[in-house]
């Protein structure tokens, strides 16, 4: 059995005397689609920055794809991909140029980059021509291409930041099929989002507030725990509001 995709234990990150992440522990298995929620300023981004190898833990441990921080996060960086629907592509470059640029950043040799491009576009089922400028691509295709760019170096763990916010419903359905396909291929997928319809599609969801992990379970179980009354039928947003505001008191 291989190591979990992400293993965080008693993780603490401090900036001066501000504790951004306060003794957070959780494990994400390979092949899981894991949602990561929290109010603005809850410590989500800081946690993700650690898991991408961009920020060292103050204390506690974090392992990503079985790797630790003994080399300062360098090995971890090579095993993670990051995609935000908003910022990862250059609109004035073509689809192909964007992928070549992503491959260049990861120092892939050109032959390997071409092979990866073919594999990825085939896996994703990307249909537009690679010669199209990104700014002329419809939203759904843009984010498929952004995912390909984030995966040029064959990462084990993929972070998706609000991957389908603003995408038309048809593109959104296609993209979630793709996310499950990635998980099915053994990748670990972490989705950060403010949108509960995205969170609903995750196998398990972690909720952060003021640096602490305050809930972690499947969407259905979180609803049952927060609203135990039979027939309550809460939305995940109701759960979010109740748990976060409850912890405020």
């Amino acid at each position, binding site marked *: 059995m291989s190591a979990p995709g992400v293993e965080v234990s008693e993780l603490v990150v401090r900036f001066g005397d501000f504790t951004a992440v306060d003794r957070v522990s959780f494990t994400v298995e390979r092949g899981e689609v894991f949602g990561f929620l929290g109010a603005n300023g809850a410590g989500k981004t800081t946690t993700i920055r650690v898991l991408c190898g961009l920020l060292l833990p103050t204390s506690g441990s974090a392992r990503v794809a079985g790797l630790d921080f003994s080399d300062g996060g360098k090995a971890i960086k090579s095993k993670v991909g990051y995609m935000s629907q908003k910022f990862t592509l250059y609109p004035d470059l073509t689809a192909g140029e964007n992928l070549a640029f992503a491959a260049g950043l990861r120092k892939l040799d050109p032959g390997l980059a071409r092979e990866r491009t073919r594999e990825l576009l085939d896996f994703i089922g990307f249909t537009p021509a690679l010669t199209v400028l990104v700014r002329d691509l*419809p939203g*759904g295709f843009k984010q498929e291409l952004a995912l390909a760019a984030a995966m040029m170096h064959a990462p084990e763990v993929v972070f998706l930041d*609000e991957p389908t*916010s*603003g*995408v038309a*419903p048809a593109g959104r359905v296609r993209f979630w099929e793709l996310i499950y396909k990635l998980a099915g291929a053994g990748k670990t997928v972490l989705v950060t989002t403010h949108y509960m319809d995205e969170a609903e599609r995750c196998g398990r969801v972690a909720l952060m507030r003021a640096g602490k992990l305050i809930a972690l379970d499947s969407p259905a179980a979180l609803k049952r725990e927060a609203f135990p009354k039979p027939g309550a039928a809460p939305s995940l947003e109701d759960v979010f*509001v109740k748990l976060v505001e409850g912890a405020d008191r």
Partner: protein
Amino acid sequence: MSVGVETSGLRKRLKANEALSGVTLSFEPGVLNGVIGPDGAGKTTLLRVLIGLLAPTEGTVAYSVDGRPAGFDAIRPGMAYMPQQPSLYPDLSVREHLEFFADLYRLPAAVYRERSEELLRVTRLERFQDRRAGRLSGGMYKKLGLMCALLQSPSLMLLDEPTNGVDPISRREFWELLGRVTARKVTVIISTAYMEEADRCARVHLLEAGKVLASGAPAELKRERGIKGFAELFLRLGGAA
């Protein structure tokens, strides 16, 4: 006064793309009017045409006050617009923003005091009035943008994706605040890419690829079309991407 807005056959060409392809819509006075659609649907272009920032390539916009036709100049002073990224000053505090905008609108001191206190209370930003805008969370920043727009007590408000990137709790508070605004018969036109927010509007207009897919009261639209959510309607009527 209650402001109505109607568009007829609006087309807007931006470079090679047609952002609006024949948009005919009627925005109801004194209620929350939602413009719902994915990124690239033409929402921002439509709002910019409605406020006179962009001239349409074809088609017209007609305004009315209390049911009677009115020129743009007549409604202009009572119009407030909040762009996707409200242009606030990172180094000014919440309180300083309110003072600055009150000056711009030439509000009398007594009116300013009353409105700013009320706004700080309902937005729950009283505690943060000395915090600089650059240090506010995403939700608070959007609330401050809305407060600056509300200071002049507008009769027509246009808000471009005010809840984008805002966490669920702040989003809920934001919509409650808008509910209070429309209780005063302010006409609000608000755009969002977030389908679930359609239900919070009195009327919605679904926009995709520069065209109107459907218009109406959310509950009626759902009943008529036999759907649970508006995503379904986009899937049925919209394009593939």
